[in-house]
């Protein structure tokens, strides 16, 4: 394929102060970020955050209201044709022709992108093996399962040797096993094809396990960007949630302990960010009882991106799906004693 533009060579995507308004409503609001060559970058955010809108602008199917962006060094407003040749997209909604076979869908794509016969055939074989669909190549897509469709779409996105791949919610609506399977494919293709990936998701675990860096996006704004580990460390060491008869009072009681770095009441629970969480549980229960508060439930866990999200937005992402790793839940019931 052709060479990239000389400037911005190291960056697969560079976005600065991008804004998109729909009739005055800011779907994305002055966002800036960049994706390095070979990196998997995740945009993590709830429904309506502006993830798809961002991808549509970067893939030149939607015009930005303000700001500028470069994909593989090409300007979205001036070189849409060059960009379209350099990117692959897996859309959020299914976009296969189910009257055609898997192979025919790829062949259609390859011809649309002007690939010559030899290259076409070689590449179809390659990408179908990459996503384990070679055996199903002659089956009509209407008989594919959801996971197979997704894999075929990923294969199709790779057909024309793109430098940058957009994956818009690649595992939305798939079961856990299929999701893990697709993650594996994404990891492999990222390594083998040395391709930069911009992935959007509202699954915490997906962003956590797959992405080198994650940007948290909410209501059109990117709130923070960093590596998943660093993001989690920002939130604190351990997280304790307590169900107590008066969370507000408990919060007051705890105001003088320096090992509590952050407190908030959410969903009727008191959430604490603490150090050495295991040791604090008995102490907290005793403390509560001393002030005649009843404790119904205590849980301790390492922070997840969910907590990062909560920390930066003050709310949870809608789906409660992420696997809460290392979740230690201590259900301790105590009676109120006078």
């Amino acid at each position: 394929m052709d060479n990239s533009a000389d400037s911005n060579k190291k960056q697969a995507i560079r976005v600065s102060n991008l804004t998109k308004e729909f009739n005055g409503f800011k779907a994305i609001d002055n966002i800036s970020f960049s994706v390095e060559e070979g990196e998997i970058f995740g945009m993590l955010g709830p429904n309506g955050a502006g993830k798809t809108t961002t991808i549509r602008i970067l893939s030149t199917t939607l015009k930005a209201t303000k700001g500028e962006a470069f994909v593989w060094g090409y300007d979205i407003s001036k070189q849409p044709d060059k960009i379209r040749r350099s990117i692959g997209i897996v859309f959020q909604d299914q976009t296969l022709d189910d009257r055609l076979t898997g192979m025919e869908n790829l062949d259609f794509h390859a011809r649309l992108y002007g690939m010559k016969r030899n290259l076409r055939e070689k590449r179809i074989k390659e990408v179908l093996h990459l996503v384990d669909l070679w055996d199903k190549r002659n089956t009509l897509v209407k008989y594919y399962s959801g996971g197979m469709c997704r894999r075929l779409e990923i294969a199709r996105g790779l057909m024309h040797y793109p430098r940058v791949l957009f994956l818009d919610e690649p595992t939305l609506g798939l079961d856990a096993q299929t999701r893990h399977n697709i993650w594996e494919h994404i990891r492999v293709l990222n390594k083998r094809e040395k391709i930069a990936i911009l992935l959007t998701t509202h699954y915490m675990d997906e962003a956590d396990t797959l992405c080198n860096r994650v940007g948290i996006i909410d209501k059109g704004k990117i709130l923070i960007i960093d590596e998943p580990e660093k993001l989690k460390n920002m939130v604190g060491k351990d997280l304790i949630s307590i169900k107590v008869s008066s969370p507000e009072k408990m919060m007051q009681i705890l105001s003088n302990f320096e090992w509590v770095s952050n407190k908030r009441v959410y969903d009727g629970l008191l959430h604490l960010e603490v150090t050495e969480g295991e040791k604090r549980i008995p102490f907290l229960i005793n403390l509560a009882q001393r002030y005649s508060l009843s404790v119904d439930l205590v849980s301790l866990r390492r922070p997840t991106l969910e907590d990062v999200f909560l920390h930066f937005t003050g709310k949870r992402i809608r789906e409660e799906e992420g696997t809460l790793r290392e979740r230690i839940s201590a259900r301790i019931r105590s009676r109120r004693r006078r």
Partner: protein
Amino acid sequence: MRGISFEAIYVLWLRELKAFIRARSRIVGNIVQPLFFMAILGVGFKSSMRFTGVGMQGIDYLQFLVPGLIGMTILFSSMFAGLSILWDRQFGFLREIMVAPVSRLSLVLGRVAGGMTTTILQALSILLIAYLFGFRIKGIMELLLSIIFMILIGTGFVGMGVAFASKMEDMHGFQIVMNFIIMPIFFLSGALFPLKGLPPWLGFLTYIDPLTYGVDALRGIMLNISYFPLAIDFVILAIFCVTMLFTGAVFFSQCEV
């Protein structure tokens, strides 16, 4: 993304053809309908009705009907081909097409080529069925000339379908186009009745219906009975065809996915 990509046109054409061959129910439906018309209307009226006007002696209603039914098949099939953008939008495939580095004009031309081909295939199968009912075209020249007119009519209506589909957001619009555009065009075209001696209001409506000239031309070529001179039919259809193709291409290039 300017210019025309023949590879893109070809692959869109190929897709249309594959989908067409695989959609057996659609083929059967498109052929059975005119077959019913021919068997019931044609045979039914044939025994009781005979044209007596100048130059029309000896032509029975079944013969008169066949070019009209071919016109009908072309109208339905090519409009559907244009409107199939709505299906592509519904099933998401339109995004895949629209994000490719290919000009919108190539995409429209590809759809026209595909729709055109399936339309002609269906029109020819009607002709074949008509043959079984005793309908004969004089010679190969007449057949070729008919096909040229079929292409002209079909291209125009694919363009019209593309234009409508580009302006509609979802599939709901389809019923509206079906009831308020396609049906009137069919009934007013003279596919079922002669244009001669109509009351002025009806005559006027048939005059502004592009399919009128298509059916008239086909009848002229196949049966030697026509209301307008063939050259007039040709010019009007050519204008219609180019206008619709242009409108379709412009509207499609403006639409968002």
